[in-house]
């Protein structure tokens, strides 16, 4: 179904109107030309007859007028055949063609007997509409004038013109249909780059590509370039926002470290009550910075379209990092992530989520950690499991709250799982906690697949 406000419909309707108008005008002109041509041929024939008859008129020795010979055309002998001639004298018709039978042609009164051929339309026998040519003839050796008339039925002319017009109309109609079809094809072909453009933009929105690629027609190329420039700018703005957020964090974290160290010194000097309060506030500030920094980064990242990242290399990078950070623990990692599992989003966000989940597993595991992934229905489920103590069912919901900590002896801010949950939510994903068959916690990260 074509929408009313569509380029294709506009082009098609516009072209159709022009085609129909042009062909109608052409058809009318052609029909008129044809009729004029046939009429001239007919009149030429009548004129010849007229001249033959005029040449055959004689009045030998001042006697009565005679016709030395009659035109030979057989149509002139057949009654009411539609082809007639007649010679009028002062008292009415003198000679008539046999085809006139018992009827005499009645001509309008001659207004200018000048010997030239005049054209008339008259009614003939049986109501036939006739085209008549007449001429006044004067004979050299006799007084008086005679009118010679040659006439023919107009019906034949009209029928021929009508037949021509009919054929013409059919031909032009077919031509019009063919032209409109050609225009439709042309519009289809012409608008194809627009469809490609639309498909490209849709792909960017769905995160399958980052930029419109390939060459487009010169008319749409500027649009494509502008769009790509816009995407580029968008990415730059996000990158700048990210850098500024990072700078802000950097700017705050070092003074916070110094403050924390001063508080430690204060505690050593015996001001334990004051230092405990300050330590609490510093911890809160640290949490706020970490939590909102991660959120800002993620929120900014989500607006950039076109990001897709394979999961396996990111898991491998986190594994590599954790293996170094937890080298003393001699942890066994079992990682099974198929190479074709792709996350639709930013690599940094994926690594932030994976890093928090896998580090959490490292902190609690006795010795074994497993990472697997599943892909179905456009969703990617990454599962991280460990063989640590796990969480009781009622703790699992609480674990996703920012700042929740279950063992103060294990270092951490208590933000990891909350950050993972927030990031996953931004990507319309989710995180589920449960019990692992390994014995510890099982975290399922559900994300859009690319």
């Amino acid at each position, binding site marked *: 179904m074509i929408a009313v406000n569509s380029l294709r419909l506009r082009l098609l309707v516009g072209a159709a109107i022009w085609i129909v108008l042009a062909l109608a005008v052409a058809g009318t002109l052609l029909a008129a030309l044809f009729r004029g041509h046939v009429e001239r041929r007919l009149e030429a024939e009548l004129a010849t007859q007229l001249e033959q008859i005029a040449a055959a008129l004689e009045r030998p020795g001042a006697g009565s007028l005679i016709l030395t010979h009659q035109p030979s055309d057989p149509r002139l002998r057949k009654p009411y055949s539609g082809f007639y001639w007649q010679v009028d004298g002062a008292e009415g018709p003198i000679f008539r063609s046999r085809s006139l039978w018992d009827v005499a042609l009645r001509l309008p009164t001659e207004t200018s007997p000048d010997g030239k051929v005049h054209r008339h339309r008259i009614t003939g026998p049986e109501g036939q509409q006739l085209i008549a040519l007449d001429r006044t003839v004067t004979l050299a050796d006799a007084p008086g004038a005679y009118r010679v008339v040659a006439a023919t039925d107009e019906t034949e002319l009209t029928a021929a013109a009508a037949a021509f017009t009919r054929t013409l109309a059919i031909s032009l109609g077919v031509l019009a249909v063919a032209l409109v079809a050609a225009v439709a094809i042309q519009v289809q072909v012409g608008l194809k780059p627009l469809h490609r453009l639309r498909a490209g933009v849709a792909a960017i929105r769905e995160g399958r590509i980052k930029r419109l690629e390939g060459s487009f027609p010169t008319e749409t190329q500027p649009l494509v370039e502008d769009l790509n420039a816009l995407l580029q700018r968008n990415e730059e703005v996000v990158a700048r926002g990210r850098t500024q957020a990072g700078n802000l964090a950097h700017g705050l974290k070092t003074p916070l470290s110094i403050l924390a160290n001063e508080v*430690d010194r204060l505690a050593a000097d015996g001001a334990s009550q004051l230092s405990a309060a300050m330590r609490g506030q510093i911890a809160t500030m640290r949490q706020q910075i970490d939590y909102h920094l991660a959120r800002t980064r993620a929120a900014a990242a989500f607006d950039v379209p076109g990001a897709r990242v394979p999961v396996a290399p990111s898991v491998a*990078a986190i594994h590599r990092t954790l293996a170094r950070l937890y080298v*003393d623990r001699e942890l066994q990692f079992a990682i099974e992530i198929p190479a074709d599992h792709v996350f639709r989003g930013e690599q*940094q966000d994926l690594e*932030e989520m994976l890093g928090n989940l896998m580090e959490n597993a490292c902190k609690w595991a006795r010795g074994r950690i497993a990472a697997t992934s599943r892909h179905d229905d456009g969703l990617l489920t990454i599962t991280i499991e460990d063989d640590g103590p796990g969480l009781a069912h009622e703790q699992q919901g609480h674990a996703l709250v920012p700042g929740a900590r279950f063992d103060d002896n294990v270092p951490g801010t208590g933000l990891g799982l909350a950050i993972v949950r927030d990031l996953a939510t931004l990507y319309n994903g989710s995180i589920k906690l449960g019990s692992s068959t390994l014995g510890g916690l099982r975290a399922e990260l559900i994300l859009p697949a690319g």
Partner: protein
Amino acid sequence: MRILIVEDDPLLSRQLADTLSRAGDAVDCAGDGEEGHFLGDTEPYDAVVLDLGLPRMDGITVLKRWRAAGRTVPVLILTARGSWPEKVQGIDAGADDYLAKPFQTEELLARLRALIRRAHGHATTELACAGVMLDTRSGKVTVHGAPVDLSAHEYRVLRYLMHRKGQVVARTELIEHIYAQDFDRDSNTIEVFVARLRRKLGVNVIKTIRGLGYRLEEPG
């Protein structure tokens, strides 16, 4: 142990240096990447605390250059940039540990000790030799369970020798690892420290290897 701190914030740098000195380490500080790189490239440190956002040369570049030149010194990255992609980048550049600011001093100390221990192939925080026990975490030394009171320099000498148990340690090597760079070094003081150590420990574990240096070993 001799530790290099590369940190552009002078206040934090001084705090770290104070903390580490109190824990019995010789500390050098560098305020920018180039100076840090130069020191790490020329002085034998036992561990480096490296910030990433540094003037003149960023921390990742410093680290990569050390590693490319074959410097295996344990490096702990201490940075405000605590996101996972940044951790991955730091570890991939050759860091041994990564600590995000703001940090707890105890955690930094514990991690540094762990790095040094690991670099010397020890799994626990306690070093032992013929009844002499040295806990690198608490800084306490005991002989057959009885605590021994050591000065900072004596402690440093003993700790270094115990990390290198069974190996010959040259005097110059000892000097390099127990004094900070800008300290007035005198190799004769080493002999004084060793003599005091032998007296305080009461067990003959430090052997003098003539012309080479010292070796810590089980007596007999």
